[in-house]
């Protein structure tokens, strides 16, 4: 008989990785597009997830997670690339302190108080559904393997709660990121997650598993830094110098 702690701990750690990915998406989108529709999308995603988990229970593994990864990863990737390119141009043109608080970060985002923002809603919704499903998969698979569902579910739920609390507390830190750089930072994150999930959905085995997200982030950050430096060396053509 496996002890509850031997199931709880790995379920907690594995779920924490997925929960961190979920939190990064929600915080990044919320900070860039505004919180109202980001949190609404996240709540809607959690609702869909709750219905799926309650309806399917242990049969949750019938959900085609690879297809979901492919679709969500592909969409995050094409959208993240747009923000990455715009973010590089903006930082090259204005530097890191170009936009002060209260000014819009994303040119395409509706102004605060405007109506429904489908972009924020969809990004947060997809992030929560995909990562939430992965957490649920972890709870089901760890629980089934050890025939101890309660500690596995406890570990998974605890991880989501702990990461959620830390994420909520980190909002102040996110606000310290220079606003002109925020679109670039979120573009880098969406592009990294999109690459990872999209390729994983196709069947790619990433070297280092989930840690591959970190080296993807490093690769794309280096690319963005080089592109920004090159643009700043030739400022005559950058938007800041346009009439």
């Amino acid at each position, binding site marked *: 008989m496996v002890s509850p702690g031997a199931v709880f701990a790995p379920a907690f750690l594995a779920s924490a990785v997925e929960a961190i990915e979920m939190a990064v998406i929600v915080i990044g989108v919320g900070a860039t597009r505004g919180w109202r529709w980001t949190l609404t999308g996240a709540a809607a995603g959690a609702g869909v997830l709750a219905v799926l988990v309650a309806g399917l229970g242990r049969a949750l593994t019938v959900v085609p997670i690879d297809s979901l990864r492919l679709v969500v990863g592909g969409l995050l990737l094409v959208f993240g*690339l*747009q923000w990455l390119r715009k973010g590089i141009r903006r930082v090259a043109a204005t530097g890191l302190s170009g936009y002060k608080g209260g000014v819009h970060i994303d040119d395409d985002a509706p102004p605060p108080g405007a109506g429904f923002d489908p972009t924020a809603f969809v990004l947060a919704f997809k992030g929560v559904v995909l990562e939430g499903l992965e957490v649920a998969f972890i709870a089901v698979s760890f629980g089934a393997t050890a025939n101890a569902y309660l500690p596995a579910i406890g570990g998974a739920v605890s991880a989501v709660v702990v990461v959620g609390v830390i994420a909520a507390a980190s909002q102040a830190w996110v606000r310290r990121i220079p606003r002109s750089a925020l679109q670039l930072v979120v573009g880098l994150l969406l*592009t990294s997650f999109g690459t990872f999930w*999209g390729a994983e959905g196709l069947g*790619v085995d990433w070297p280092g598993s989930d840690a591959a997200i970190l080296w993807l982030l490093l690769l794309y950050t280096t690319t963005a830094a080089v592109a920004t430096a090159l643009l700043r060396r030739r400022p005559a053509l950058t*938007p800041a110098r346009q009439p």
Partner: protein
Amino acid sequence: MIRAVVAFARFWYGFIIGDDWTAAAAVAAGFVATWLLLRAHVDAWWLLPLVVVGITATGVARDHARG
């Protein structure tokens, strides 16, 4: 009803294509190429990151040239 359908289609067009259709096309091509390599038993984890770096570099260069 028609207005809602148009708004829905416009949203997804902006989300996926945006102002540079070549990026979405290159990502789609990268996915197809990765899938084909995987089917040929090639461990193609490296392809999509290279595609992303290439798309970013060419997109920024094109924007730069346009001013």
